[in-house]
């Protein structure tokens, strides 16, 4: 069997494992959707903020951002879980396998991507039913973008997780990375109408481009040209992947 086939089978094996585990834990699939639904139905409808897009309600305006939020939280949490794996020894089995660390990283990222896209798909269906009309074409396009965004976020989570030693850091990452990424990303407001500092922070945030791209797909409205959004997301994905592969190369068993 050629080396390439072995690496390919390994990616498939890792992916298969993540998929099996993911779909066996049905409670978690639902639990992940609770906070985005609160954002959509309590804040989106209750707060009923101002929507910058004519003919689009505030709830509809934040929907693409909340969709990205589900992906952000699911995928980054998944990635950080590798700290836990390191301590529990499940990872040892995979680390000792005759596959390159790049393959392992790819397999894990795809695994995280799969879980996040599944959540995004459920939320898309909920959105299509209760929030805004979505044709199959738009859902397909949104899913395609979700794949990319999910991979990016899982890669970021894994790269950070691979370098962290204790689960205590988990909360810090959530407070100092995930939430700021979400809030600065313009999921809840219009970047055009915000101050220069907020805008600067937003443009440094990879999540901004994900939200903007998703908004273009679902609402036909975006702050930046969609091609620029796509290019930014692709560039971030390439950078996160490179960083992740290096982090995984340095990965050692911790006790």
């Amino acid at each position, binding site marked *: 069997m050629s080396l390439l086939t072995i690496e390919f089978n390994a990616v498939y094996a890792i992916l298969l494992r993540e998929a*099996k585990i993911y779909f066996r834990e049905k409670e978690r699939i639902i639990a992940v959707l609770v906070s985005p639904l609160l954002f959509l139905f309590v804040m989106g409808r209750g707060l009923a903020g101002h929507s910058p897009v004519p003919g689009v309600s505030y709830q509809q305006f934040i929907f693409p951002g909340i969709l990205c939020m589900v992906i952000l939280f699911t995928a980054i949490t998944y990635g950080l879980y590798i700290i836990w794996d390191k301590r529990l*020894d499940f990872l*040892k089995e995979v680390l*000792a396998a005759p596959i390159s660390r790049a393959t392992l990283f790819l397999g894990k990222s795809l695994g995280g991507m799969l879980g996040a896209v599944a959540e995004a798909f459920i939320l898309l269906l909920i959105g299509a039913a209760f929030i805004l009309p979505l044709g199959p074409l738009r859902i397909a396009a949104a899913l395609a973008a979700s794949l990319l965004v999910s991979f990016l976020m899982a890669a970021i989570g894994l790269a950070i997780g691979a370098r962290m030693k204790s689960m205590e850091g988990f909360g810090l990452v959530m407070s100092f990375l995930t939430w700021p990424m979400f809030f600065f990303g313009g999921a809840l407001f219009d970047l055009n109408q915000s101050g220069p500092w907020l805008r600067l922070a937003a443009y440094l945030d990879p999540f901004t481009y994900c939200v903007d791209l998703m908004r273009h797909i679902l609402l036909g409205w975006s702050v930046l040209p969609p091609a620029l959004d796509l290019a930014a997301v692709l560039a971030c994905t390439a950078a996160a992947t490179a960083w992740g592969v290096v982090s995984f190369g340095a990965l050692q068993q911790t006790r």
Partner: protein
Amino acid sequence: MNEDRAAIQTFGLTKSFGALVAVDGIDLTVPEGEVFALLGPNGAGKTTLISMLCTLVKPTSGSALVAGHDIVSAGLEVRRHIGIVFQEPSVDDLLTGRENLSLHSMLYGVPRREIPGRIERMLAAVGLTDRADDLVRTYSGGMRRRLEIARGLIHEPRILFLDEPTLGLDPASRRAVWSHIRDLKKRVGATIMLTTHYMEEADDLADRVAIIDRGRIRELGTADELKRKVGGDIVVLKADVGPEAFAGLDFVKEALRQDDTLRLTVPDAHLHLKAILDRCPSIAEVQVRRVTLDDVFLKFTGHQIRDEEGRDTIFERIAGSLNAR
């Protein structure tokens, strides 16, 4: 494999964690096809040594060749030739036994067509056929252990590392694991490096035994050689007497006080027993026995292996609680 047919070779292999030197300049050569036991208490550095050889931990200094490949610069090549059974449970709880074996086979490059057949054979070998489709979560500690062993063997590695393979197992399961290991050596001719803190295990399984303590190899040889080095039988006295009482007797090679007993090392003890007993004013208990690896350990490290068993036993507690379930 390299020309001199050594499966494992280490050169001053060292690993420190901050101030703690877990493995301290170990030089070892394990020829192909040998069963080699690392015997030592918890915290002696056995697991760290094995983790380095499996490329899971990078050495602080020194180097090693496994299957002829450098563990630092050719980690991937090393991993293609080895199998590992970990000390801590590392089978995937959330999958079934069969799924664990199937994913492992894919990860380790077993050709797709061969996977189902091999899984059936391994499941039968470790007696898990009827529980194969249950989640590992529901397995007992012994069953997990057996599944781990099946997993370590399914890709037929040339070199197998077993880290405390029978830790936390009941005696029956332990014997079953031993017979698998013996069978593996006979049938496949695999090189096996195992760590243990059970004397019987090293004695029973290994071609050669290394006594490891505080990161260093204190003594190395066949179990018989090591026992001969102790130099005789052991006489344990519970009596009102100190080591100085036997100073004049040249057949007493060593006299050591241990708690409330006195241990004498005496070649051909049956010939000298009367002379020994004559020196004791009163005797509560006498025991004469053959040298065990326990005695070897005591001689070369200055303490008993069981002294430290209570120390770092979180894994034993885990294994114990898994067993109890």
